[in-house]
C-alpha cells in the first residue's frame, strides 16, 4: 500500500468518523432503542402505601431497563395523574421525547393483586397491549429483588425492539421546516451537523425529517443551558425555554469539625468563574483533639476565593476549583478584637463537588487544603504538645503550616 493510498483511507476514516460524530446529535442512531413513557398507577389496592408503590414502580422500571433489546423507559411521575384519553397520553409521550407509552395499574387485594397493562405505539399508531395479569401472592416488597416481572417485561421488550430511522416514517420521509424561538445568539446543538445560531429576531430554522424523536441543547452566555427532547410530528414552531443563570449563591456550610459558616458567591456571567467571600466561626463545633467533644473558640475566619467551574451548568454534578486568601480574627476574653496572632492569615485552595438537591438548592462538598502563615512558630509547635505530633498540620519552618485535610460541606442556594 503506497503512501497516497494510505492517506486516502485515513481521510476517508476521518470523514466517516466525523459523519458519525455529527450524526449522533442529528437523528436517532441506526437501530436506536425506542423510548417508552411508563406510567404506574394505583387503583383500588388496600394495604399498599405510597412508599411501597414507589418501590414497585422503581422495580418495574429497573426490570424494563435491564431487558435486553427493549425500549428505554422514561418514568411518568407517580404523583401526576396519567391522562385518560389516548390522545392526551400520546401528547404526554411526545412531550417526554418518547415514541410509545405504557400504563400499568395495580389493583385488587394485597395478597392477590392484579396488574392492568395498556400500551400504545405512536409510530404505528396502534394499541399494542391491553391485558391483565393476576398474582396469587403479595408483591415481595421487603425483598423486591425477587420480583422479576417475567409475566410482563419480556412482552414489552419484544414488542418494542430498537428501530432504524426509516421506521419512524409512516410513509415517505417528509421534511419539515422547524422554526425554533430562543434568545438571540443562542447556540442550538443536536439538530444539525453544525450548531444553529438564533438570529437577532429570536428565531432560527432547520429542516428535519418528520415524524421522529429529537434532542437539542441550547446554550447562551448568562443562561442555564437547556436540554430538550421532543417528538417532531409535523409541528413547525417550537420555543426553547431558557432560564437566566443564577449569579448569586448563598452557602450554609460546616468546616472540619462542623464549625458553621456562610458565604456568598458571585458567579461571573461571561465565563464559568466565580468570586466568593466567606465567614466561618469557631464558636461551636466538634473538636476531637481538645480532650472534649465540643469546643468553642472566640475565633472567626474570613475567606476570599477566586474559582472556576470545570463542569457545565446543566450537569447533574459540577466540579470546581479555586484559591484565595483567608484572614482570622478573634475577640479573646480580657482582650480586644484583633487579628489572630497564632495563625493570622493563609492561602486556601479548594476542589469542590456540587450536586442538585431540590430546585435551586444544591449540596456541595469541598476539599480545602490550607497553607497558614504563623509569626509564632514555636508556640504553634508547642500547642500540639510534647510528643512532636502535629497532625493534621504539617509544619514548614520557619513560619508556615499546612493543613491538607480541611473539608467543607453544606448546602448552596442559587439565586
Amino acid at each position, binding site marked *: 500500500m503506497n503512501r497516497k493510498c494510505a492517506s486516502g483511507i485515513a481521510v476517508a476514516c476521518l470523514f466517516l468518523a466525523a459523519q458519525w460524530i455529527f450524526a449522533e446529535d442529528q437523528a436517532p442512531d441506526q437501530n436506536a432503542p425506542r423510548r417508552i413513557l411508563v406510567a404506574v398507577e394505583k387503583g383500588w389496592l388496600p394495604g399498599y402505601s405510597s412508599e411501597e408503590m414507589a418501590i414497585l414502580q422503581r422495580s418495574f422500571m429497573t426490570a424494563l431497563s435491564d431487558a435486553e433489546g427493549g425500549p428505554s423507559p422514561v418514568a411518568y411521575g407517580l404523583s401526576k395523574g396519567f391522562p385518560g384519553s389516548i390522545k392526551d397520553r400520546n401528547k404526554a409521550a411526545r412531550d417526554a421525547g418518547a415514541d410509545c407509552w405504557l400504563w400499568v395499574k395495580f389493583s385488587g387485594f394485597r395478597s392477590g393483586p392484579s396488574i392492568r397493562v395498556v400500551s400504545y405505539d405512536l409510530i404505528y399508531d396502534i394499541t399494542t397491549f391491553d391485558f391483565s395479569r393476576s398474582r396469587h401472592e403479595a408483591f415481595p416488597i421487603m425483598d423486591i429483588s425477587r420480583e422479576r416481572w417475567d409475566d410482563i417485561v419480556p412482552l414489552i421488550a419484544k414488542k418494542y425492539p430498537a428501530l432504524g430511522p426509516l421506521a419512524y416514517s409512516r410513509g415517505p420521509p417528509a421534511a419539515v421546516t422547524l422554526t425554533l424561538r430562543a434568545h438571540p445568539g443562542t447556540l442550538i446543538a443536536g439538530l444539525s451537523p453544525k450548531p444553529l445560531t438564533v438570529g437577532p429576531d429570536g428565531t432560527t430554522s432547520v429542516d428535519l425529517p418528520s415524524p421522529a424523536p429529537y434532542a437539542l441543547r441550547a446554550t447562551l452566555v448568562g443562561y442555564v443551558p437547556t436540554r430538550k427532547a421532543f417528538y417532531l410530528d409535523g409541528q413547525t414552531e417550537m420555543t426553547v425555554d431558557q432560564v437566566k443563570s443564577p449569579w448569586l449563591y448563598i452557602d450554609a456550610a460546616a468546616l472540619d469539625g462542623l464549625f458553621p459558616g456562610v458565604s456568598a458567591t458571585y458567579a461571573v456571567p461571561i465565563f464559568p468563574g466565580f468570586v466568593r467571600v466567606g465567614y466561618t466561626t469557631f464558636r461551636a463545633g466538634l473538636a476531637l483533639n481538645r480532650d472534649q467533644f465540643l469546643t468553642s*473558640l472566640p475565633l472567626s475566619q474570613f475567606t476570599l476565593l477566586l474559582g472556576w467551574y470545570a463542569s457545565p451548568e446543566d450537569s447533574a454534578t459540577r466540579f470546581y476549583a479555586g484559591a484565595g486568601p483567608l484572614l482570622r480574627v478573634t475577640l479573646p476574653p480580657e482582650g480586644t478584637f484583633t487579628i489572630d496572632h497564632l495563625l493570622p492569615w493563609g492561602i486556601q485552595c479548594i476542589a469542590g463537588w456540587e450536586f442538585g438537591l431540590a430546585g435551586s438548592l444544591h449540596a456541595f462538598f469541598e476539599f480545602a487544603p490550607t497553607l497558614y502563615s504563623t509569626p509564632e512558630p514555636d508556640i504553634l509547635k508547642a500547642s500540639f504538645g510534647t510528643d512532636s505530633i502535629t497532625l493534621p498540620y504539617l509544619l514548614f519552618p520557619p513560619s508556615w503550616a499546612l493543613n491538607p485535610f480541611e473539608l467543607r460541606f453544606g448546602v448552596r442556594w442559587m439565586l
Partner: protein
Amino acid sequence: MKLCLLLLLPVVIVACAPPYSAELNSSAALAHQMTLLGTFGPVNSPDGNSTTAIKFLPVKPTAATIDALTVQSGFLVSENPGRESLCFAYQDSSEVQTSDFRQSFPLAGADPNYPLYEYDVIATTTTANILVFHLDAASIGNNTVQLFTAALPTGPFQSAPLTTNPQFLTSIYGSQSALAVQVLPVSSATDKFNFLLVNTGIGSEVTAALAASTSVFPTSGNTLSRSLTLPASANRFLDYRSPDDTLSYLGYNSGGQWIWSRWDGSSMLPLGGVTHRIDALLTDGDLISTQDGTLTIYDLNGTEVNSVSLGGMQFCYEAYVGTTPYVFFSLSMGFPHENWLFRVYAIPTSALRDLKG
C-alpha cells in the same frame, strides 16, 4: 443513608479545632510594649487534667543587661481543686523537664480575699530560690515560711537543707505573729524582707535578712522599725514599706472592699482612691495592683496613674537587671492534652506608667 455516612466519616476523622491561644491574643497589645525574654515549654500539667491554672515564676535574673537574659528555668505554681503545688522546671538539651520533687499545699480555710500562700522568688546566687509564706488569718500563730532551692541549671529541687524549715514566723521577732510580708529588691543580688507583726492590736514592722544556716530567717538581731496602730481587728493585712523606709501602706479587706491607709511614722492617712488589692510596692515608690486581671498603678499618694488590662499576664516580681529595676510578667498558655507554654516579659519599672491597653 450511605451517602450521609460516607460524607460524615471524613468529617469525623478530621474534626479538630484549629490551633488557638486566647492568652496570646489577649495579651498581644501589652506584649508589644514589653521585652520578650523567652518562651518556656511545652510542659505537661504537673497534676494532669486536674490542673485548673498554672503560674510560671522565672528564676530571678543574674544577667547585667536585659538583652543577655534568657529563660532557662523557673517555678511552676499549679492550682488544683483543694490545693496548690510547687515544682521546679528547667530546659535541658532538648526539652523542658519538671522536677520529681513537688510540694503540695492544702487550701483548706483559705480566705478568698487574701492568698493563703505567697510565693516569692528571691535573688539568685548559685541556686534558684523561692520562699513560700503560709499566712492564715485563722491561726496567725502558725504562720510559717519555707525555703525551697534548686541547684542551677537542672536541680535537684528540694526544701532547703536548714534545721528549721519551715520556720514559724513567730520566731522572727519577740514571739509576735506575722500578718504580712514584703519582698523588695535592693540590688540584683539581694532582697529586703519586711514583716508586719502584731501584738494585742499594735502592729510592728520588722526588717529581717535571709539567714545563712539553721533557719530561713535569723531568730535574733532583727530590727523593729516602728509601731503603728492597726485600723481594724483583722488578722490579715497587706503591708508595704517604701524603699527609703519613710512610708508604709497598710491595707485590709472589709466585706469585699479594700481599704488602704498610708502611715508616715506619726499618723495614718486614709487612701480613698485605692480600692484594689495591692500586690507590690515598686522601687520607684509606685503601688501596683493586678486584681481582676487589670494592672492598676497608684502613685505614693494613692492616686491612680494608669490602668490597663493584663490580658492574662501575671505579675511575677520586680527585680534588678544590672542597675535597672524591671517588672517581670509571665503568660501561661494552655493547650489541648494538658500542655502548657509560658512566656516571660519584662518592662523597666520607670516605663510602667506609660503602658497602654
